[in-house]
């Protein structure tokens, strides 16, 4: 298998948003949603639908949108050549809870817009709509973050020759830190980090 490279990385830590290992945005808020809203207000602000997303979709959207905006990957390659994969442990937990509470309260109808978010891949769909990404996409469930899994899946997609680059990340809405996303491709020798377990872990821990 060819070597692959982490061309760009983003990580949301307790104290800030880190891009390629450097803190770019200070985040003092306690909760993840407040952090995300703050990032949206200061860094994005051009997708009003953001406010109507649930916690999971907001997280995926922030990570996916920022990496596409900063790397301009959709200018470099066609949207059909960009693969997009996200992983987490709890699926669509925020909306699952809300939906369950709604249907238990005795009222006949649940919230349709909330129900749509009980699918963890819907947030990815929003990123694809905004950036016109029509390439391969998956959402996987793993018990916990695995740097090895991220490396392997990136290499799997790139080695099949159906994509020129992959955006891949971990979006766990129940975790206040450690959510991260990577742009990985076969380009970047000598400039970008090698796509290895060690490097993925370092980035996630903001080392």
């Amino acid at each position, binding site marked *: 298998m060819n070597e692959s490279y982490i061309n760009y990385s983003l990580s949301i830590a307790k104290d800030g948003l880190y891009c390629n290992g450097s803190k770019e945005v200070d985040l003092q808020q306690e909760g993840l949603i407040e952090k995300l809203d703050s990032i949206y207000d200061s860094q994005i602000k051009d997708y009003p639908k953001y406010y109507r997303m649930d916690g999971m979709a907001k997280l995926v959207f922030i990570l996916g949108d920022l990496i596409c905006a900063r790397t301009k990957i959709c200018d470099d390659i066609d949207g059909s050549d960009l693969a997009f994969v996200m992983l987490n442990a709890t699926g669509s937990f925020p909306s699952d809870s809300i939906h369950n509470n709604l249907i238990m309260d005795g009222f006949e109808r649940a*919230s349709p*817009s909330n129900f749509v978010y009980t699918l963890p891949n819907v947030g990815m769909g929003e990123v694809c709509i905004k950036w016109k990404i029509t390439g391969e996409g998956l959402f996987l469930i793993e018990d916990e973050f695995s740097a090895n899994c991220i490396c392997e899946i990136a290499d799997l997609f790139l080695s099949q020759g159906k994509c020129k680059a992959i955006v891949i990340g971990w979006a766990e809405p129940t975790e206040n830190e450690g959510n991260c996303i990577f742009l990985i491709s076969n380009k970047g020798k000598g400039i970008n980090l090698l796509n290895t377990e060690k490097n993925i872990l370092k980035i996630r821990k903001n080392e």
Partner: protein
Amino acid sequence: MSSEEKSLLKSHIINYLNLEDVKQEEIQDAASLFGDGLGLDSIDALELIVMIEREYNVKISDPSMGKEILYSVDTIANYIFTQK
């Protein structure tokens, strides 16, 4: 519907659709809510149907009727009024 009741209707619309960045005053009574208006879509239409049932006890059982009824704050208000 009185202007107070319409105001309440608008606040329900904002709450149910999570339109956090929209103020009540920005929603004009006769303006289209969909397409170029507030940019609402088919899922939002379904959400409004749930809102009308929950808050006003008025059912819309055929979603294809939704287009006409949900066109604007005025058309929603008129429908609720005629059903009560």
